[in-house]
């Protein structure tokens, strides 16, 4: 019972974090702001997956969190390369 309430608290905190990151992703005046918001969003999603592992008591979610962390890092690097190639002159 108390576990349910605590789970709801944790998930609301994470959900608000995701919401703020998404607002910045939509607003972001420049491309790099959007990339930063996406990076933050990915990290919060890793947290969500880890909490899911604790809620369901299933260690398979940790494998998924590991793979997601790797993909998030690669995504950041690839988008950084994209941002760097996109100068202001040719926009």
């Amino acid at each position, binding site marked *: 019972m108390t576990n349910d309430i605590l789970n709801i608290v944790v998930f609301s905190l994470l959900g608000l974090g995701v919401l703020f990151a998404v607002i910045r992703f939509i607003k972001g005046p420049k491309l790099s702001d959007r990339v930063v918001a996406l990076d933050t969003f990915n990290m919060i999603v890793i947290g969500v997956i880890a909490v899911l592992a604790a809620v369901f008591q299933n260690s*398979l979610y940790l*494998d*998924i969190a*590991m*793979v997601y962390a*790797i*993909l998030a*890092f*690669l995504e950041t*690097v*690839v988008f*950084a*390369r994209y941002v*760097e*190639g996109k100068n202001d002159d040719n926009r």
Partner: protein
Amino acid sequence: MKKLFAFVLTIGLGVLMIFSLRANTLFPEFGDVSIADRISALFLDKSVNGDNGDVVFGQTTDAEDGAANLVTSIVVDYRSFDTLGEVTVLFISSLGVALLLGVAGKQKRLALNFKPNFMLRVGSRALFGIILMTGVYVILHGHLTPGGGFPGGAMIASSILLLYLADDEFRTKVKGFKVLESVAGSLYVIVGLLGLVLATYFLQNFLPTGTVGDLFSAGVLPIVYVLIGLKVGSEISGIIDHFLTEGDLA
């Protein structure tokens, strides 16, 4: 005249087919099929050959293929020939990329606009080991966890992609990839032929299976997944290499 003849021939063949199927006692009447006898329900219980018991994780021994992951047992046991075809599709696409973009003679890296900074260059060398090992782990545990040869191979290729992005000068040896890919593909067929020799069918599971959920439990499935993982990883890495290099025209 020709069209009329074709029409009559088609109708005749259809009638012939319907009548021959109606005479066949193995083929049930329309609407008379009981779903419980269908083979998909048996697949779900993994008891195609024996009694219709449930499979319990960590207790059942000697299930037909022993994989805890149902999708794995479908993909590389019951429909393994289909998977061989899928791997061939990937092989053909990588061959196409090699034919279109590969140039005979010396090749060099494309000049990119992206100059990696120091932290990325050094840090990716430290992270490369972790990413590669995670890919290997995903492949080796394909019969226990979600994952398997295709995602694991993609993880290995992504570790190579990280090295390409993080270092201007880095190039892998394409020849090694080609050799690995060919060897893995041939070994897959050889495993299938061994199934034909030691058991009954092409690609049949001929190794003993253990308790569902153990590491060494699924007979030939992990071997097949390792081969698929090596093949997929080397193919995608080869494609990445071909996209990021160009022939030295000068």
